[in-house]
């Protein structure tokens, strides 16, 4: 009985040297099993890797609710010098979630930048804009001074010397009744233009704001 396939050469099988393949067959039992093993293995590995990874990177995409903290009464802050107050950044972890903020009343003679108009109080963060060390306000020198790598800032928090890449961060302030409240943090560039909060060491001048994006869930300013 002549082989009815003899005259027919499949263009799939020809020259492909698939072991054990009949003519015209593009997938043998072995290839099928190899593929199944790879697929099943990948699914099994992905089934625990991907959720675990998502679990670990999840906090990046979690938005944090902003809170307002009362730090004093109207009139308790001078307009030419800073008073340290304690604000809460992360609630629920006690001391470890607090930070010091330097407060000063708005002074039209000093705060001439257009972005500051209408702000009742200037609240300056104590996190150095170089790498986050705690800066200290020195009244006699009218300077914020960082103890780590030599950052120095002037009265408005702008860099005077050392390596900081942008001025000190600030906080929103508002007056509710007789209370002065401190709200979320924001970052400023060297012209004191406001940006959503960045980590220290992330410049905001020029292309800096694009090289160092803010957190994805952060409300854009």
């Amino acid at each position, binding site marked *: 009985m002549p082989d009815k396939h003899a005259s027919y050469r499949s263009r799939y099988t020809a020259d492909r040297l698939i072991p054990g393949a009949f003519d015209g067959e593009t997938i043998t039992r072995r290839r099928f099993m190899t593929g199944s093993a790879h697929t099943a293995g990948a699914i099994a590995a992905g089934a625990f890797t991907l959720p675990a990874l998502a679990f670990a990177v999840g906090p990046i995409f979690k938005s944090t609710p902003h809170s307002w903290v009362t730090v004093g009464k109207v009139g308790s802050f001078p307009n030419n010098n800073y008073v340290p107050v304690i604000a809460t950044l992360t609630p629920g972890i006690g001391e470890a979630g607090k930070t010091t903020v330097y407060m000063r009343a708005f002074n039209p003679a000093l705060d001439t930048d257009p972005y500051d108009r209408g702000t009742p109080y200037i609240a300056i963060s104590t996190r150095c804009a170089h790498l986050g060390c*705690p800066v200290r306000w020195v009244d006699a020198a009218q300077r914020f001074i960082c103890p780590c790598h030599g950052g120095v800032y002037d009265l408005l928090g702008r860099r005077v010397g050392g390596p900081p890449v942008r001025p000190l961060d600030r906080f929103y302030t508002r007056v509710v009744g007789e209370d002065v409240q401190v709200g979320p943090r924001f970052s400023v560039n060297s012209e004191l233009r406001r940006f959503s*909060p960045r980590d220290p*060491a992330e410049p905001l001048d020029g292309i800096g704001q694009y090289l*160092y994006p803010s957190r994805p869930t952060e409300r854009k300013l």
Partner: protein
Amino acid sequence: MPRLPKLPAPPLPAALKAPPARPGEEDGRLGPIEDAKQAGITIVDWVDERTSLSGVGRWLLFRKVPKGTNWFYTLGSATLFAFLSQAVTGVFLAMYYRPDPAGGAYESIRHVTNEVFLGQFVRGMHKWGSSVMVVLVFLHMGRTFLFGAYKYPRELNWVIGVVLLVLTLVMAFTGYLLPFDQRAYWATIVGVNINGTGPLLGPYLSDFLRGGGEFGATTLSRFYSIHMLLVPGLIIALIGAHLYLVTKLGTTAPPWEKAENSADLREAKA
């Protein structure tokens, strides 16, 4: 009649001789010590029959080390030993530690240091052991560099070694935060911000390390988990690969050691 010289008595056949005294008692029975030895040998044999581990042991221990190796060649094993010391003291410190930033972490370390029996000693060993390990890693690397031991065929072992160096520094850095004293806190803030200075991805990396935009409730447990589970696991796996390659490729000979004076050996090989 002349006296014939006396011939020596022919030796007795072996079968007729009294058996030589066996170890143990006079009657040839085994004593308890020999019984115990036999039992040990039997157990080892039983395991070996099923695992063939003795071959691995021979391969690992009775390989030849080239002539001329000196004290500089002990730096690698000294690093391994420092790592083992860190692992053991770390396990015991973990029994007392609570990764709770709201006071528990600092309090538990204070408890270990001041109240637990030998607590300050074990914590001191872990703390200073990290310094010793960092120093030994650098010395071992310097030896490898100066002796040209990273060259063919040991390139891959050098690469693994560099990864181990990085992981050792990661261990040193993540271990820092755990006591949660002032130095720990501020060094961590600075370290996380240093990671954040990478363009584009940096901010996400520092968010990942902190578990959020600010130092938060889970930052400490993140560092704890990285310090005692993730990185040690990687280090153990890579040390295994490092040692496998050392055994397979052999310890290097000192670079000034030459085989010129051994013509006979070369001929023998030929």
